[in-house]
């Protein structure tokens, strides 16, 4: 998603159920979406298979 693509942001906002926020607080929705788009590159994977899995464990066998 382009951080400045207002039409794309509107589609995502409406898909998230934010029709009222889009109508009444469009600048806030745009600012929120653009801030996320700007941050996204910081977390890119380097080596998908080698990096650790997210945490999940079960309790020990009773």
């Amino acid at each position, binding site marked *: 998603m382009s951080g400045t693509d207002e039409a794309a942001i509107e589609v995502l906002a409406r898909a998230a159920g934010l029709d009222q926020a889009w109508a009444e607080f469009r600048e806030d929705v745009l600012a929120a979406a653009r801030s996320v788009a700007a941050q996204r590159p910081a977390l890119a994977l380097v080596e998908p298979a080698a990096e650790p899995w*997210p945490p999940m464990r079960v309790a020990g066998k009773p």
Partner: protein
Amino acid sequence: MSDLHWTSATDLGDALRTRAVSPVDLLAAQLERIGRLDPTLNAFIRLDAEGARAAARTAEREIAAGHWRGPLHGVPIGIKDIIDVAGLPTTCHSRVRLDNVAETDAAVVAQLRTAGAVIVGKLSTHEFALGGPSFDLPFPPARNPWNPTHHPGGSSSGSGAGLAAGLFPLALGTDTGGSIRNPASACGIVGLKPTYGLVSRRGVFPLAYTLDHVGPMARTVADATLLLSIIRGRDPKDPGSVASTDDIVPDTLARGVRGLRVGYVRHFHETDMPADAEVAAALDTVAAALVAEGAELRTVTLPDLNAFSSVNRVLLQSEAWAIHAPWLRSRPQDYGQLARRRLLAGAFQTAEDYILAQRRRTTMIDAVDAVFREVDVLLTASAMDPPCRIDDEPTLSRTYPRQARTPFNVTGHPALAMMSGLSADGLPLSVQFVGRYFDEATVLRTAAAWERIGGWQARRPPAFA
């Protein structure tokens, strides 16, 4: 006793036990001070004078009858207003929750009541513990006693401001991205984010499930230790809660730092987010002082501070969205603008973002644990800048993210912020100590050593001294 409002909770507890001080008289002194000073500071959202007087009378009767409950019996305490106190609204400083009266106490509040503490009221926060300082909310933001035109840090802002102004000797705060340690840094008090899971969060309005912590705030390290000893404990109804037997033995705080291996995380404030010169100089002063007391100082390297911040942001925004989405869809107008913007961001995080952040988190935990195989405690910056004016929105926006607290929300290690000095403008500077999981004892021991050496915790905001 003179100056009851500056007396530590530890000393008040002794005086109450021996009946040198009456809980009713102590509360009356605090209420007088609150009534006189809080209109300037806005530390309280809701003062519960009537409930506090009833609790103080009960404490007086019980102590007189020989039923002393322990060192908090009769001691006043303030509660951040995202934590439930039965019979009082938990507003979260928001229009969204104005009429939300708690039916039961949060687990930590129940522990305080059992200990005989006197709950004086509910304290200002940022909206839902993330949107502030803001002027478009149903209550004004708290102010910094060191300079009331300045922000007191947040989101446990009323807790920090009230402690620094002598409105109560103890407070509870919560910390998801630094919200106990930020006001501790800005207001020159002591704030401890315990190990994730050590203190129950049942009855506390969540911000982000895997980052939220409840912890003690106080004016002295001994008082923070005392409060932690009351609120810690396994709670089967908090899914993050864990049992720990690593209690803090009574002489811990007096042991000093001789022989302790202190890892100095210089890159956080020297290269990752270059700190204000006064902040950096004060950190070097702390490091040198600990060495002079016999600690062994090693420079250590953790992942880049900006990477920690990115992970914290994705986790926080994603989890907070899961909590707030229904209200953001149906009543976005009831949020202040800051909270609305920050919470809406979660709608644009993807499953991929969240899972990547969790994977990064795992590597970060491993990296911090690896360093803890070489050292006993970490010394890092807390805030990179002294507090700024509360109405200076551009400076607030620039400086608020400039901090080194989020790494230990991401990893869950215990971390304490306290005063490292005063800026040329008379505003608190800060330092952070971080320990291994469940080793709050070493964090508090190091903080107690710096408290004795530095002497800063005894300083009072001049206008409120």
